């Protein structure tokens, strides 16, 4: 029994290709072509005799229409655009939201391991015996002044400069 059509149906991802390949297969495969024919008896069974003898349904249909006019059929409210979107679109939106969230986290918050390293170094910093400078007072021309302390990166010294006199 030929199973090629099942493989084509399951494996070919593009609808158009699948349509063409399956149609061609059914046309050319002798095994499938034989099965595609149907006995006349089945044909007859698909349309039993009672169908032709059934009286017109118009009377019942008209009654339904009249009943519908008296008590109008309440149609469900149209769903919002989000829920009307096809499933693949919703899945794509969800996936891109997750991707954007993950990227943002890594870009702006930093990698967890890197962040943990930074936190650790910060915690370790006070334990090092780094020299401390305490400026008690700064005078400029004999008067108290504000001071600024500078240290350039990787420099082993600091600059302490008075800026201006307080109240001057």
């Amino acid at each position: 029994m030929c199973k090629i059509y099942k493989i084509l149906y399951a494996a070919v991802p593009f609808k158009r290709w699948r349509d063409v390949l399956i149609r061609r297969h059914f046309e050319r495969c002798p095994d499938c072509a034989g099965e595609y024919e149907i006995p006349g008896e089945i044909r007859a069974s698909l349309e039993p005799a009672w169908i032709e003898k059934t009286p017109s349904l118009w009377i019942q249909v008209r009654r339904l229409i009249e009943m519908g006019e008296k008590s109008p059929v309440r149609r469900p409210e149209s769903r919002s655009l989000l829920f009307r979107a096809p499933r693949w679109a919703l899945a794509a939106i969800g996936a891109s939201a997750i991707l954007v969230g993950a990227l943002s986290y890594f870009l702006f918050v930093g990698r967890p391991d890197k962040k943990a390293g930074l936190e650790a170094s910060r915690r370790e910093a006070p334990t090092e015996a780094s020299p401390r400078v305490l400026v008690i007072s700064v005078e400029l021309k004999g008067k108290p002044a504000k001071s600024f302390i500078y240290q350039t990166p990787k420099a082993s010294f600091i600059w302490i400069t008075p800026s201006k006199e307080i109240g001057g």
Partner: protein
Amino acid sequence: MDSHEDHEIISRCLAGDREAFEMIVQKYQPGVLALTWSVLRNRAEAEDAAQEAFFRAFLNLDKFDSSKNFKSWLYAIAFKRCLTFLDKAKTERKNRPKIAEATIRESPLPTGERRLEDLSILAPLLGRLSAKESLALSLSVREGYAAAEIAEVLHCAESTARVFVFNAKRKLRKLLKGEAHV
């Protein structure tokens, strides 16, 4: 009555001439009944589903796209009604396959010659097909629909419709062979 006349009747219905819809019912009743019967396998339910399908079609005539085939549109509505019927009756029909199987086994066929002539034997076999397979088979065999037209009714790809028809025929052949050996 061709599709042009269908559109004329639809225009009349939309203009308020409700009685014009009777012509649509008369024209498509056998086709819709055959379709609903092929899916539901129950005459009373098939008639109810057909009535509802016509009613729904009447209510939604304003939504019908005149560039498309009215018959396929109507058949799609009828199929949806059938699915609703199947859903409603799902709990009642839980034992249906067993009953159908039992019926087949209880009535063994005396000779191979008789088997295909007796339509009452074929009916339960057709009941073994899925709703979509039954519909695809009915449309293909009875209406002579091509795969593309079946796909339009089923809202699926052409290849899917083709596979539904093929699977239905293959299953029936298999079932018939099985019955011949009972």
